[in-house]
């Protein structure tokens, strides 16, 4: 099984680890900022704490919005719904993709079904589906998360299915079969651990995508706008301040959103690079 061991060039190994470290550093700084922020910020995100539409100042490091709310407080407290719902959607999508990929890769009869379903989902204009469903049903956080799961499971499922269908031909799977394990046991005990690392890589990538998608639909005015989140901050900024030149109202929440997405994408990219069987040669 020499082909299982990653044998890689010095340059790409250097690159990969550096990208992962860079991504992890970004995420750690942001999570630290969000976790420690509430201890230092005593203004509530929905409290009027200054004059409206003011640029950054010592009292309001990220400025104030059109109603005099402190943007820094909004950004810190708004991070929680953004990140939590992004994680929920990513966990759901990864779990669904993992199970679909496992069974679709192992059982020949399910293969057509699973790969057909992934193809269909990947050819859907997903954001527009999300917007339509969200707008017609006056979406709650849960509805958005469920639609995100139904959209995002497909990329992971496709990669995992491909890997499973190559793993299942390895000699140790045959050995397990002859030693009397049932198909069910082989799938969960022998194949699942083999492809678990790919699922983790896709999980990290999906977190990055789901946070941005959820913020994107909220930015368009679909979703729970009464809750302060990065998406809803940007929605109100676009509606009430941006064209008047309130750059600070857009810069801070957007930058944090961008950095978070990029941090997860860097980590996911590195994982994928290490695990991708095509690049292992």
């Amino acid at each position, binding site marked *: 099984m020499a082909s299982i061991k990653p044998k890689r060039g010095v340059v790409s190994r250097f690159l990969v680890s550096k990208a992962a470290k860079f991504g992890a550093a970004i995420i750690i700084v942001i999570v630290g900022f969000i976790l420690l922020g509430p201890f230092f910020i005593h203004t509530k995100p929905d409290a009027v704490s200054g004059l409206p539409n003011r640029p950054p100042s010592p009292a309001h490091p990220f400025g104030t919005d059109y109603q005099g709310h402190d943007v820094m407080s909004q950004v810190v407290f708004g991070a929680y719904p953004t990140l939590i719902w992004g994680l929920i959607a990513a966990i759901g999508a990864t779990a669904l993709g993992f199970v679909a990929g496992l069974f679709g890769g192992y059982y020949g009869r399910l293969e057509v079904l699973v790969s057909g379903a992934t193809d269909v989902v990947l050819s859907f204009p997903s954001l527009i589906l999300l917007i339509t469903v969200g707008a017609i049903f006056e979406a709650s956080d849960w509805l958005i998360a469920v639609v995100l799961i139904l959209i995002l499971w497909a990329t992971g499922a496709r990669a995992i299915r491909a890997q499973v269908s190559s793993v299942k031909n390895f000699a140790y799977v045959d050995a397990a079969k002859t030693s009397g394990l049932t198909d069910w046991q082989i799938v969960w005990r022998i194949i699942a651990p083999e492809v678990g690392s790919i699922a983790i890589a896709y999980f990290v990538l999906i977190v990055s995508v789901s946070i941005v998608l959820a913020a994107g639909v909220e*930015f368009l005015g679909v979703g729970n706008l009464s809750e302060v989140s990065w998406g809803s901050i940007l929605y109100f900024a676009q509606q009430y301040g941006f064209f008047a030149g309130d750059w600070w109202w857009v810069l801070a929440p957007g930058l944090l959103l961008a950095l978070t997405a990029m941090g997860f994408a860097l980590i996911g990219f590195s994982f994928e690079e290490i695990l991708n069987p095509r690049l292992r040669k």
Partner: protein
Amino acid sequence: MKFLYRRIITYIIVLFAVINITFFLPRFAPGNAADIIAGATRLPNEASKIIATRFGLDQPLSTQYFDFLKNVFLTWPPYLGVSYNYFPATVTQLFAVRVGWTMLLILASIGVGEFVTYFMAAFSAMRRGGKFEIGSLYSSIMFNSIPLFWLSMILLYVFSIVLGWFPIFGATGFSPGSGVNYYLDVIWHAVLPVAALSLSVIGESFLIMRGSMQEVLKSDYVLAAKSRGLSNWILSSRYVLRNSMLPLVAVISFSLASLISREVLVEVIFGYPGIGDLLVDAILGRDFPVLQGSLLLTTIMVIAGGIVGDIILTRLDPRLKK
């Protein structure tokens, strides 16, 4: 031809699913269309009954369903209902005016984006692990992951609001002129939206191109070409890139769905009068027929683009014909 059959079956399922979503979604939504129209215009209760009769909403569901299919497939131009917000105008009329602008942005950004990607990938292949490759890689990851709507806002702020180089909204000015002046005006208005979309196209395609190029670089024929002493440029442009073209075409046709989704957001920021702009007005005005119509129309655009891409793919790669 297995590949093409498979793709076509996929498209048929996608279309079928979207048609059903389009039909059933608003019928399961809280409140019915007639009440919404009547409510919006504050008409008395009888009015909502008249409206329901007018739009066939009092018919049994199966009759409505077949009428809907007939209107979409057997009527020309397809009838997708009447917009609530722009009342006498049908959804089809609204789309007809706007679809061209959306197509312009999409095609221009695929063109610009893939052109730049091609050369970025070529230079990266010439010097593996060099500064250029690492820079391209990091910027691709960045542009692929950061929210495009935020990037667009920053571009708009810097180049239109602060520097004033480009217009703040629209696809043309109020008096665009004619002939060459008209085209120049259109290009001037399209620069920023196309730039924003192209950056995300580059981000997505470069990562895929680079992956497929690594595979090609390890192949025997590249090694053979290298040992014959061919220059780096010829090696990367003739041997490596040509064989990495397949995934590039594949990624265009596969990423059309996500590209159209992103294009909608870009239109909103730049106030560009395409489908996306209409869609967002429809969200705010709860204009369901327009919402449903946008979903159907964008899906048809994705499918049409996908079929073109798949045909090109089978031309490029004879293996797919088997």
